């Protein structure tokens, strides 16, 4: 066993605990499962880690992927064949290949055999992508994939294959790791590759290097190639030596080792340190994020369950009419407090939130306008480039139009990615601030809880403490401690749990929503017309003007799409929090009604029925105690 344990629990452990909490919740609610909660379990259980493999053509990308998965010929590898489409490789109980077509092809996805892969997935079999393939999904029972890895094999980024930039911007932003593949034999990293890497670095810092075909060169040559490549990366591509993670491997040797379980070949293949790095360095960060979100949701659900069972216990223990009456008063008081909060406090909080969202939207619109409008920054930059062609003839100017358009689209994509990061940070902070304000708004009335003086005193202490915490902006978990131990009443727990719900259920959605909006906008940016559509003139000045006009039209189209896309995203985000609040209030009102019903039944129940119910509560409390212990242990590992 490792001396230093990895602190983050595995996603399987988190999903397992989430499932048990969800099942207990269903048990308490008469068998009805919380569908949204169980959908979250799926997200955690899958724990997808996306690896995008990029590099020049014929550098061994596909062989590398096959070796990672431990399956020869999983994706096509032939000496004289280049991959021409995207392959998305994921886990499945059995092997299967499916072709997904571009929307304009008007064709449904198609399951194909391994023999047909060349027909759809290579330049030889599908020249210029005449079949209009969007991507090919490869399903494999590989153990690596079962752990949540998804591999994306990309076509080569060589000069002949013009779509590489589009693919880079489409897949690299969402990647959890980008593996750049070069080889030990042909040539070191060249100018095209350096240019590509510089652009890639603007999109993601998660770039790792793999030098393939290690066994095809002698150890000295391999080492020299590695050192040479590292120099190129530091001197020309802007990487620092400290940030470079570089692996020398041989995919064929790895596959041969797998077939015979030959340890020596495995060690010589170079895959052991790479797999260890993937498992112990790269994956844990992503696992931590997913585990964290899953744990928060689980913990929020657990607080609700515990409060619910405590309430049921109180009702069952109320043996006298007076005690039952006191509980009924408490339920009525809780309902009144929640209604009061819902009518008076919640609208104010939501209004403040929406004003702040509007402010962010205004800022984003300003940035977008500055960049994309006619005469804006990107247009001016293109104009400066064209001015550099002052002494060139029109033919050269028209030839530069397509590369210039692609460069502008690349810059536009970078801007959109920067905006998305900024937006996600600001929206997340805003939602967490909303959650803190909701928490802070509990301390309004002594009607919330408190039949005894001691409880009132505790509440009073809690109010002060809570105000201080709100001021300091302490993390959400601390709030739950205060809430749980100080507020014994239903209303307190209800409203505080809503705050937890905001952070647990709305915040994780922000990233996904913004990510898919940006993904769509970037795809749109690359969907512009080809420069061949420009009307030609024989005059150089007119040529520069018409190329600039073409670029501006492209930018204008992007501008409109971006504004529209962001407006829709903001509208959706604005109402996410409010909808989450409304749903929670509705759930708790239902719970109060159920408690009233239980109270009524308790008044009419026989001694045997009450005894059986109490036994049931004992079991539930025992399950809750057991889960509480596990949650605390998991909490320790995560924080």
């Amino acid at each position, binding site marked *: *066993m*490792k*001396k230093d*344990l*990895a602190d*983050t*629990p*595995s996603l*399987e*452990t988190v*999903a*397992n*605990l989430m*499932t*048990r909490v969800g*099942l*207990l919740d*269903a*048990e308490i609610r008469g068998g009805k499962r919380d569908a949204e909660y169980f959908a979250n*379990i799926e997200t955690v259980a*899958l724990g*997808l880690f*996306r690896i995008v493999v990029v590099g020049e053509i014929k550098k061994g990308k596909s062989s590398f992927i096959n070796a990672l998965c*431990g399956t020869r010929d999983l994706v096509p590898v032939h000496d004289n064949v280049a991959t021409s489409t995207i392959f998305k490789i*994921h*886990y*499945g109980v059995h092997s299967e290949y499916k072709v*997904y077509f571009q929307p304009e092809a008007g064709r449904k*996805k198609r399951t194909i055999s391994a023999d047909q892969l060349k027909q759809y997935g290579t330049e030889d079999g599908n020249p210029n992508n005449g079949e209009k393939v969007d*991507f090919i*999904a490869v399903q494999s029972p590989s*153990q690596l994939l*079962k*752990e949540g890895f*998804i591999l994306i094999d990309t076509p080569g980024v060589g000069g002949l294959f013009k779509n590489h930039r589009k693919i880079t911007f489409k897949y690299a932003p*969402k990647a959890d790791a980008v593996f750049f593949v070069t080889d030990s034999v042909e040539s070191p990293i060249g100018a095209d590759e350096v240019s590509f890497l510089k652009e890639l670095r603007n999109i993601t810092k998660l770039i790792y290097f793999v030098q393939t075909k290690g066994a095809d060169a002698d150890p000295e040559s391999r080492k020299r190639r590695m050192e040479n490549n590292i120099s190129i990366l530091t001197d020309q591509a802007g990487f620092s030596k400290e940030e470079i993670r570089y692996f020398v491997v041989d995919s064929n040797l*790895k596959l041969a*080792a797998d077939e015979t*379980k*030959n340890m020596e070949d*495995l060690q010589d293949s170079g*895959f*052991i340190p790479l*797999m*260890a790095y993937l*498992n*112990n360095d790269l994956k*844990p960060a992503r*696992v931590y994020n997913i585990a964290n979100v899953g744990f928060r949701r689980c913990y929020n659900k657990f607080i609700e369950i515990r409060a619910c069972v405590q309430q049921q216990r109180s009702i069952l223990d109320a043996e006298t009419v007076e005690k039952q009456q006191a509980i009924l008063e408490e339920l009525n008081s809780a309902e009144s407090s929640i209604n009061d909060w819902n009518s008076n406090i919640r609208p104010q909080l939501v209004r403040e939130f929406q004003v702040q969202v509007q402010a962010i939207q205004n800022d984003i619109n300003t940035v977008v306008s500055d960049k994309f409008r006619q005469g804006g920054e990107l247009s001016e930059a293109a104009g400066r480039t064209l001015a550099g062609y002052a002494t060139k003839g029109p033919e050269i100017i028209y030839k530069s139009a397509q590369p210039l358009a692609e460069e502008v689209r690349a810059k536009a994509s970078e801007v959109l990615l920067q905006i998305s990061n900024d937006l996600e940070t600001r929206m997340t902070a805003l939602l967490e601030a909303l959650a803190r304000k909701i928490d802070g708004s509990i301390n309004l009335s002594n009607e919330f809880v408190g039949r005894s003086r001691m409880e009132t005193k505790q509440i009073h202490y809690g109010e002060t403490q809570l105000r201080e915490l709100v001021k300091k902006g302490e993390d959400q978990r601390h709030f739950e401690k205060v809430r749980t131990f100080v507020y014994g009443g239903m209303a307190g727990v209800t409203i505080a749990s809503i705050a937890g719900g905001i952070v647990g259920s709305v915040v994780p959605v922000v990233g996904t929503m913004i990510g898919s909006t940006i993904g769509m906008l970037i795809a749109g940016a690359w969907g512009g017309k080809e420069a061949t559509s420009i009307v030609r003139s024989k005059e150089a000045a007119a040529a520069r003007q018409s190329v600039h006009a073409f670029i501006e039209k492209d930018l204008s189209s992007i501008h409109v799409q971006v504004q529209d896309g962001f407006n829709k995203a903001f509208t959706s985000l604005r109402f996410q929090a409010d909808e989450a609040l409304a749903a929670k209030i509705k759930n708790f009102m239902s719970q109060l009604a159920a408690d009233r019903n239980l109270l009524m039944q308790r008044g009419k129940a026989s001694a045997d029925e009450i005894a059986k119910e109490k036994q049931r509560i004992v*079991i*539930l*409390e*025992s399950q809750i*105690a*057991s889960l509480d*212990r*596990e949650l605390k*242990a*998991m909490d320790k*590992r995560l924080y």
Partner: protein
Amino acid sequence: MEFTIGDPDFQNHFWQPQDQNDNCAVAAQTDILNQYLDHPVSLDETNYVAMTNGWYHPGYGTSADDLGNLLQAYGVPCHTVDGASIEQLASELQQGHRVMVGVNSGELWDQGPLSEFRHWVVKEFGLDNSTFTADHVVDVTGLDLSDIHNPQVIINDSGDPNGAGHTYPLDQFSEAWKGSDFYYVATNAAPGGSSNVDLDIGQYMGVGTTLGAEYLGLDPLSSGLAGQFVDSVVNNVDWDKVLANI
């Protein structure tokens, strides 16, 4: 009167020593695998599979999160629990599940009187016990409750040359187990051919999980069943939807 939960006698036959200083996790899983598979698998082979998948790195060992991966790789589903209780452990054993735990080896192995004195000093004076972290994995094969005042835990320990069916007092075992924050990995089902363990101990041990719950007509809340649910989720993904968003 003898009263043992689990089937340590059956499991003793599958004990083997680890062949590296740090591949106890591989050895522990191999012992268990050989109770499920039709054809035995060697430690060489499981070492290979673990290394090729990054679950065991010589010199570094195996991280807690990777414990159980070998079992899954060979088609033996399992689940993990953090912060477990001895009752949960007993429940797993009672169902015939095979269980591995993370332990602090120093608490188990006799390291001499000086080591015992050091441990006493640290505990007595409440000193920093960060040295007491888990550094070893063992298979828990049984609980001997014949003397209810002196319960014993029976383990197969690949790091002990006499590790087949070694017993430790529950207190000592718990101290060792604490090093991993009471973490365990258990298989979801018993292997075929193991001894019949159908005694319902739920009532006696006040177990709030599977057995006691079933007794009262509640749905079982066992981590084994939850593990099956999680497995079914992973095996029934809507890949069209997932891949469209990648």
